């Protein structure tokens, strides 16, 4: 029983820490730069289905490395605010009906509660939809032992253009996704 209480307390503390980082991320991550990460040609190709070439969108995937690096460095600095190992991932909506989303920057610990390995884009989870619509941070516990806090990313017009996922896990897996 004491172990369970300890785990609950640790998880709550962790979520609180992640929430604080997510709050800072909303201020520090530059939405205008984020919008410039993916090249227009790549964005145009993202949802296209080529019956003769199932890998076309993946092969066309391309980014402006300046915008990518600037944002990635910010995400990496934010991750240093976490008291334990965490990743701060960038997610950007993909214009589609129903709405879709793509992870655009991942980080070294390979943590995410949403990304399925290798997916270029995916259906937008309800939690992300909520963040984008309401502008409020959301704490997510989908996978056992993992906590994510989702927070909006704003551009210079004050519009929400994307979101960050600040994510940590109780037990690190040093081999997951090493492939």
């Amino acid at each position, binding site marked *: 029983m004491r172990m369970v209480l300890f785990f609950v307390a640790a998880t709550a503390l962790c979520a609180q820490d992640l929430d604080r980082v997510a709050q800072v991320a909303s201020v520090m991550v530059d939405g205008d730069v984020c919008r410039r990460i993916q090249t227009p040609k790549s964005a145009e190709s993202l949802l296209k289905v080529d019956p003769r070439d199932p890998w076309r969108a993946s092969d066309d995937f391309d980014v402006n*490395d300046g915008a990518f*690096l600037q944002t*990635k*460095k910010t995400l990496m600095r934010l991750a240093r605010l976490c008291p334990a190992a965490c990743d701060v991932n960038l997610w950007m909506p993909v214009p589609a009906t129903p709405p879709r989303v793509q992870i655009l920057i991942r980080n070294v610990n390979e943590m995410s509660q949403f990304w399925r390995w290798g997916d270029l884009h995916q259906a937008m989870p309800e939690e992300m939809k909520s963040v984008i619509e309401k502008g409020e941070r959301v704490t997510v516990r989908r996978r056992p032992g993992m906590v994510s806090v989702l927070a909006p990313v704003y551009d210079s017009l004050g519009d929400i253009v994307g979101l960050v996922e600040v994510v940590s896990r109780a037990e690190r897996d040093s081999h*997951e996704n*090493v492939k």
Partner: protein
Amino acid sequence: MSCASRFGLISLLGVACAAADLTAFPEHLRPDPFGAIVEADRNAAASATHAVELEAARGAYVSFHLTASVPEGGVYRVLVKPFPQSSRIEADVYREWFHRLAASGGYYPDALVPVRTPYSSRMPEPDNLVPQQTAQAFWVDVWVPAMTAPGVYETSAVLEAAGKTASVPIRLTVLRAMVPEEDVVAIDHNSYGSSWLAVDYPTMRQRAGAGFYSSDDYFRLIQAYYRIFYEHRGVFHNLGYGHAGKVAPEYAPRLEGSGKAKHIADWNLYDRHFGPLLDGSAFASTRRGARPIPYVYLPINPEWPASMLAWGEPGYEREFVNVVSGMEKHFREKGWTSTRFELFFNHKKRYKGFPWDGDEVRFARDYAYFTEYARLMRLAVPEDTPVKFRFRADVSWTMERQFKELAGVINFWVCGGGMFGWYLDQSPELKARGDTVWIYGGTPPMTSPASDVTVEVLRTWVWGVDGFVRWQTTAAGGDPWFKSDGGGETFLYSGDRFGIAGPVASLRLKLERNAVQDLTLLDTFKRSKGTGTLRAEAARRFNGTLAEDWHAPRPKLADTNPEDWNNADIGDAIPNNPKFGRGLDAAAWQRVHEYVLGLAREVQ
């Protein structure tokens, strides 16, 4: 007369025996669990025999299938008697596992489970669960050491079942010719990470618990993968980092600090993992002897050892140089100077970790990153180091441009096999400047004709390049035993279900090894016959092609912008010669083998 034709002469013209029987097939005719040949190999003319006649050079294996037919079912026993001890010839016997194919429900043999004879079991085999199984196949590898005297050696195999005994005489002619120890081409088998080992070896995983990845058992296991490929005249590569730069702890020294204080703190896991591979002691028990691995991936990636947080700033260079120079020093002090340590970037931007492609670069502006890493390596590694560092790039879309623009940066090219045919004329220039040139491709599934695994081996030699990589060779799938996907991404299987704490070879790996062995011997005749003659004759015998049929004419596509291509365009531009596809018959390599033996018989 060769092995294949002798098999043919003593043909039974049918194997539907009413009583227990022991028969043999040449290596390229894979038996099914009912005494017939699998569908993919049926286009080759030969059938079961009641006698085995083999011929082999020294320092080589020669192989065949034994099939125990027990139509009435029940207990049976198979014995392969040893060759005379003085010959030092050894016979290894493997039970052939019949994989049930998820797609068709049919059965193909592939995993080879080592057994000691006499081997006793029941028909149907209790663990293979083949309904109405009437025949069990065994792969027999006969090893002829280099010191064996030329001559004829005899032994036999015996089946006991249902009160009957059946015997197959085995006669082996050992030639004077010797297969060189060094392979004429490097046939490489790639893999990624090691989390699959925890899945494939549940017994070991459970026993080791949380300490699995740092246990002695784990290191012995991973070394067993290198060893089994080495024993099959192959190379093994195992990448230790992911697309966002995560390095599994046992693939790199442990680092501490950041910026100018970043340094190597601990080599323990790395040395336990790689030490026996790099000094060769992991191979001491093999027939080929202790030899350091020829190639190994470094853990270097955009996030290791330097953090991307400092990319473009002095701190990145300092972190990189501090750690890589420490690695060079460690390797040098350990005497690990014969292995090529590969700086290799596997990441792709589609996996969203980094903003440039390290693997199969498509966008030319990404080249600048390679140039920068070459500069960092020059800073980190003394010019006169005895440690062999190579900068490897796996290339496809823009390989032609990369050959030019990254000259002096990349010195180890691993080129998409189909497309490289367009640029084959550039191979001599690459090699002349000291670059290593490999090609890459896939792993034929077990449902292809037996000879399919030899196509790329022969292509590598016909093209005159240094090696070939099968990009994935250890992913056997969720249930390779009863719901097999055909094994198109594996050449090995976990021995866990058989109580073996290591991998077991596939039949396809054995066929590949025998082909490498033949080519290595064939290449020794280039002085007397000329390389062109040897290549032309090998190609002709293999599939009725001319050597030039193996080349691909440069298509118009090659003169357009690769950023505008797609995979379908590339596929359209690669010749689709049916002689390499549906027209391939299972005996293709056997005909090359006969050619090699013919030349070998002339050796005095």
